[in-house]
């Protein structure tokens, strides 16, 4: 794995935010109907494929990890986040992390962007001064996050739990709509890298992960549709044992 120097550049405009950030969309109102595109192509432009390739290879080569990548997206200003397309967010995150990981300076990025704006046909490879690395074999490009167990899981299927109601200013995978809510452990999913630390260079700290079932009425109150449940995969430290029976 290629190791690059740690964070060196400025972050995303000083933003550290994000658990209650704009990306946490579950249950929000006002976005209107789901619009579908007929005969949608795999990519709408070549740069979208480039964005996907850059993220894939950066993850495989260890420039950044998946949690850092997600957190970089979450640090976008909320108005920019909503205005951007999916792959524009990816591009923004790669730029943020390339700078923070010391692979580029903002000035160098801006200089090259100006160059390519002036030389529309130029191949990205033409600026490369070093020998590019050889192609790797194709696979799914997934980096495993499963780790060996170090202790027995605290909960078992059927256990009633209540999720913690926390609002820390860092990356997390406990959505806002499911905080402080009662649910039931559906099953144990193994021990997984903990995003809340892994996104911040604080280590993998693997924890038991559980599929947890929440009744819709617990999440949405009187507005819940009938006969609905939501299943979330939640890390052990998001959960506390609940008394009595959950919905």
């Amino acid at each position, binding site marked *: 794995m290629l190791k690059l120097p740690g964070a060196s550049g400025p972050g995303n405009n000083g933003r550290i935010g994000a658990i209650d950030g704009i990306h946490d969309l579950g249950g929000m109102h006002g976005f209107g109907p789901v619009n579908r595109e007929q005969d949608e192509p795999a990519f709408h432009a070549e740069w979208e494929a480039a964005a996907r390739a850059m993220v894939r290879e950066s993850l495989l080569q260890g420039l950044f990890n998946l949690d850092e990548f997600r957190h970089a997206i979450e640090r976008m200003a909320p108005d920019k986040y909503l205005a951007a397309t999916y792959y524009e967010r990816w591009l923004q995150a790669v*730029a943020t992390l390339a700078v923070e990981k010391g692979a580029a300076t903002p000035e160098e990025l801006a200089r090259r962007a100006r160059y390519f704006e002036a030389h529309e046909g130029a191949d990205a490879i033409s600026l490369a001064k070093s020998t590019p690395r050889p192609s790797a074999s194709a696979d*799914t490009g997934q980096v495993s996050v499963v780790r060996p167990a170090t202790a027995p899981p605290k909960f078992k299927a059927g256990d009633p739990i209540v999720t913690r109601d926390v609002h820390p200013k860092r990356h997390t995978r406990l959505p806002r709509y499911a905080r402080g809510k009662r649910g039931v452990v559906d099953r144990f999913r193994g021990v997984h890298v903990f995003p809340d630390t892994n996104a911040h260079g604080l280590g993998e700290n693997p924890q038991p992960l559980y599929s947890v079932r929440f009744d819709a009425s617990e999440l949405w109150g009187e507005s819940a549709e009938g006969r609905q449940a939501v299943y979330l995969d939640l890390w052990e430290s998001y959960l506390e044992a609940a008394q009595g029976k959950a919905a």
Partner: protein
Amino acid sequence: MGKIHPNVDKYVVSRARALESILLEKGILAPDSVDRIVKQYESDTGPMYGARAVARAWVNPTYKQKLLTNSTAALAELGLKYEMLVVVENTAQVHNLVVCTLCSCYPWPVLGLPPTWYKSPPYRSRAVSEPRAVLKEFGLEISESCEVRVWDSSAEMRYMVLPIRPPGAEALPEDRLVKLITRDALIGVATVHAAQ
């Protein structure tokens, strides 16, 4: 590329190329990385592995059991190494739906690239809180007696729906069944229909 969207922001394109050139120099990107991605997704379109797994599960109860309880082994039989998939089965009592509210996680090794609507704020915000209303917009009315289970991909587990085998397709062989199975059915926003 063939299908390039007409509205390409010049600033975005040059910024992407700037990043590309830097990552090439750093040895993170290989010269053919982008082409390989394009080739992979433009030729490999559609829910290839997902559809094959479902069709086999419909004709082979042992395989179905394996797909539901040990998807890694089931997918390996089809030649795919993929360890994080959970397959959830639709029945007359339970309809499953997959979403990722926090970003747009999606089991792309089995389904291909996600459609834009899956990644859009309307779907991400509404699928967890009003799935029946969303499904109705997709033309799917779920009966009141059927429970709707929404799987919000909050960790690295990925979800795929095993749809109900359509009535009228009982006699079809596996390779014909594969062709009936759409991406949307494997996300849970559609059912599978026997060909007319």
